[in-house]
């Protein structure tokens, strides 16, 4: 395919992985460090091809552990940096992410999730939800987690991810999956240069006489100091709650609410259409940020609906957060497939109907 720098605002047909990579260049990343793994190798390939012609630095590291520690170093020096991988590779990065979160550095990590556990399969999955939203590595920390549901959002969330990461000096993650990485859709790319560089007075860029040493560390050996740092982090996570984002589809009169993110939210959109054709008042809440999670909105919706159903490509992970959110006000059911399998819109509808049948039996 012809490579060209496109005119502003022109629609292009791109794979999710390519759109994410092109958005990274347009977000003026200083560097990308990564290691190939299916189903996201196109990101590294695209950047290896494009960055030398344009601007920035791209390095294929010797491993994911090396990648994330290069990110740690470069972020500490105030650079806008990013890496990407898929599930097993992201697991290897967890130690580094914990260090980066503790040292309070901004960076962006894309996880194009594949089926697991273990080396697993290369097919799409959402099995890394817990790892992404609950911390993933050791200690009390959180990533800011964005879940795109289209190729357009694969590009847009690079910008949003950096904006949030830099605002809060916290690592951000784009949690997506193999299908969104591999599929092509229409995308209008964000404009190059539109993501302003932020001031980084904390960066280790060489000490002038005018200020004290800047120190980037995650080692606070005195527990009093370590607790202080933890308080600071927890305060920050409280503030981050205000960044919660979600999308509602046909919620207004909904008696049943599906909760789904990423690819499974696309599948559920179809389920909503199918259900409405049958006269079932089904709506969809799609969390866009997985951390912070829309606890408050789900709790409000629990007053309105008969039940909720979390639809995921895993054994039931987000469903736990949905249950926490509704505080037992309504039943929360779960429909999922695992190991790289994808539930169909009809599967989800069937599950809704079987819940309705059971409820009817109980009432009779």
């Amino acid at each position, binding site marked *: *395919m*012809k490579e060209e720098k496109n005119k502003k605002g022109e*629609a292009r*047909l791109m794979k999710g992985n390519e759109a994410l990579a092109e958005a990274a260049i347009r977000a003026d990343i200083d560097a990308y460090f990564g290691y190939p793994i*299916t*189903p996201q190798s196109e990101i590294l390939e695209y950047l290896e091809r494009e960055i030398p012609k344009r601007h920035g630095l791209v390095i294929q590291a010797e491993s994911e552990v090396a990648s994330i520690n290069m990110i740690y170093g470069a972020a500490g020096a105030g650079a806008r940096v990013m890496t990407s991988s898929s599930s097993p590779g992201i697991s290897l990065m967890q130690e580094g992410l914990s260090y980066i979160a503790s040292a309070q550095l901004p960076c962006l990590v894309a996880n194009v999730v594949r089926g697991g556990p273990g080396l697993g*399969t*290369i*097919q799409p999955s959402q099995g890394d939800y817990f790892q992404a939203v609950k911390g993933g590595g050791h200690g009390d920390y959180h990533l800011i987690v964005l879940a795109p549901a289209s190729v357009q959002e694969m590009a847009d969330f690079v910008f949003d991810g950096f904006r949030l990461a830099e605002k809060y000096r916290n690592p951000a993650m784009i949690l997506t999956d*193999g*299908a969104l990485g*591999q*599929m*092509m*859709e*229409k995308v209008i790319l964000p404009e190059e240069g539109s993501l302003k560089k932020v001031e980084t007075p904390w960066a280790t860029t060489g000490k002038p006489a005018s200020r004290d040493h800047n120190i980037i560390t995650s080692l606070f050996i005195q527990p009093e100091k370590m607790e202080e740092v933890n308080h600071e982090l927890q305060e920050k996570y409280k503030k981050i709650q205000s960044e919660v984002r979600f999308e509602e589809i046909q919620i207004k009169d909904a008696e049943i609410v599906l909760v789904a993110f990423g*690819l499974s939210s*696309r*599948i559920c*959109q*179809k389920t*909503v*259409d199918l259900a409405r054709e049958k006269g079932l008042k089904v709506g969809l809440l799609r969390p866009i940020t997985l951390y912070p999670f829309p606890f408050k909105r789900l709790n409000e919706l629990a007053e309105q609906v008969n039940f909720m159903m979390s639809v995921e490509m895993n054994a039931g992970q987000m469903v736990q957060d949905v249950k926490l959110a509704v505080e037992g006000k309504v039943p929360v059911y779960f429909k999922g497939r695992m190991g*790289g399998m*994808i539930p*169909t*819109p*009809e599967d989800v509808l069937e599950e809704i109907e079987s819940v309705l049948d059971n409820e009817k039996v109980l009432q009779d």
Partner: protein
Amino acid sequence: MQKEHEIICAGFGGQGVLSMGSIIAYAGMNEGKEVSWMPSYGPEMRGGTANCIVIVADNRISSPIITKFDTAIVLNQPSLDKFENAVKPGGLLMYEQSTIINPPTRKDIDIVCISAIEEADKLKAKQVANMVMVGAFLEKQPLVKIETIVDTLKKVLPEHRHKLIPINEQALIRGKEIVKETAQVSV
């Protein structure tokens, strides 16, 4: 045209199945429609067969992954076996004649057999058999214009490949003609 058309293109790797789907998607986008193109990239592809799901729609596309199709375009027997029953009642099943030993048997769909490889051979360009299929499909289902496909090829192909555009155009037109002539084998 209905507001959403869902297509599966399937065959062996190397037959141009994925590019067949992507050119329909590209052309759809260039006519201002919403499109999605979802390839098989998993182990099934590594076994030699490939497929892609293409959706061309007037409105926002919900699920890019679906199991029932308005049209199936198949270029080998395993794909026919797999997708014959995935065509919606009243839908369209197009298959490449020389690659199929056991033809489809359903009575509730429109079945069209296209001798795309033979026609491509006549054009002395085996590799455009997929475009014969696309041309034939567009005669049955005018989702996008042939001219848009040609314009799209100009856009997406690098300059040094532009010499291949006329042969692709001929293949598209030939596909349309075949459908007009005789190819319908059952209704």
